[in-house]
């Protein structure tokens, strides 16, 4: 029997798309508004109006990861900064130099790397070591998640302080790094999901979650961190809630009906599907065709092609 190379994130059952491997982004999208989840995650609609993604956040992540791994290998600060800048230039340089938003362009990424090294080279938090001797950086995980589903994520790094382990995640933002900003992460799906996976499934003795935030402006970069120690009973409750959410998603799939939640329309500066949902159902496809491109997930494209072959 032919074995698949990897488990598929999405599948098609009776011609209808379904998500099999969830992550915090899709879970939050579904919880925020099932219709939004259907348009973006299952149908793959991408706005034509919103600017092209330049990979700013990914570039900063990569730059910091190279800084950390070079430090782990014993490089000097100057060597690590040069290596980090080179890696970012090669991978993201071209796209970032096209960025219209100067706070999220190439110079901002280079500044974040250089200033980061100045700020945190002598850090109390040490990168944890894997049993293989490698640094605990950019670790992907995929674990069973309820009835037939799976959950995947990527841990930026695991650090230790006084012999205690913490998951650490880098966040880039334009927001001021004050208590309002850090308040967004308690409670939070990613924080709870990652702690659940690390503690309950992977069996790691993780004390808490650190949000390692980077504020980028046109002329400056600022850094700040916050530590979240979430008790296990809260994590278990989150898991029960998540299972309930998955049941709801299965129900919506079976009925092929993903209802809208209008309370989410104005979140984060306004949903990009607001105009679509404001049109009568018979005219919605006109708006979708005009303002959006349809680019379903590669797993779905493959499944549709197979079904049509």
């Amino acid at each position, binding site marked *: 029997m032919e074995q698949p190379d990897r488990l598929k994130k999405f599948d098609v059952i009776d011609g209808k798309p379904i998500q099999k491997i969830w992550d915090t982004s899709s879970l939050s999208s579904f919880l925020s508004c099932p219709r939004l989840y259907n348009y973006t995650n299952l149908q793959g609609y991408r706005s034509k109006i919103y600017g092209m993604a330049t990979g700013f956040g990914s570039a900063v992540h990569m730059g910091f990861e190279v800084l950390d791994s070079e430090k782990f290998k014993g490089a000097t600060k*100057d060597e690590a*900064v*040069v290596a980090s*800048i*080179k890696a970012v*230039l*090669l991978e993201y*340089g*071209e796209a*970032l*130099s096209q960025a219209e938003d100067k706070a999220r362009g*190439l*110079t901002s990424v*280079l*500044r974040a790397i*250089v*200033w980061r090294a*100045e700020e945190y080279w002598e850090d109390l938090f040490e990168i944890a070591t894997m049993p293989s001797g490698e640094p605990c950086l950019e670790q992907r995980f995929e674990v069973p998640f309820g009835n037939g589903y799976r959950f995947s994520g990527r841990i930026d790094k695991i650090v230790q302080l006084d012999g205690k382990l913490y998951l650490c995640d880098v966040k880039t933002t334009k927001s001021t790094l004050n208590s309002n900003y850090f308040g967004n992460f308690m409670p939070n799906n990613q924080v709870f999901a990652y702690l659940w996976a690390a503690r309950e499934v992977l069996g790691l003795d993780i004390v808490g979650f650190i949000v390692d935030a980077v504020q980028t*402006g*046109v*002329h*400056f970069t600022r850094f700040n961190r916050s530590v979240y120690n979430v008790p296990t009973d809260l994590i278990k409750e989150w898991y029960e809630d998540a299972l309930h959410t998955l049941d709801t998603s299965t129900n919506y799939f079976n009925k092929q009906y993903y209802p809208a939640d209008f309370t989410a329309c104005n979140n984060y500066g306004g949903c990009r599907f607001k105009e679509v949902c404001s049109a009568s159902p018979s005219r919605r496809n006109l708006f979708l065709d005009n303002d959006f491109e349809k680019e379903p997930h590669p797993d779905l494209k493959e499944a549709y092609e197979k079904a049509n072959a």
Partner: protein
Amino acid sequence: MTKEKEEVQELEIPIELLEKDPMELAENDNDINEIIKYLRATRENIRATESAGKRITSKSARTKPKQYKEDPLSILVKEA
């Protein structure tokens, strides 16, 4: 009352390096080091601007503002 003109040292932005083709830039350690030197200097200037309680503008990254030798509060109290 005449205002004494301060001599302010202004950093030169390495525009030609920052706008260079990223692939070419990645091959040139000297150019990368110039950019690092410039960005480190901008950090000092921005930090000085922040500690002087001034607003960050496009000029702040390039110039270091005049620093108070005394505690700014004691200056205010003296002047009052």
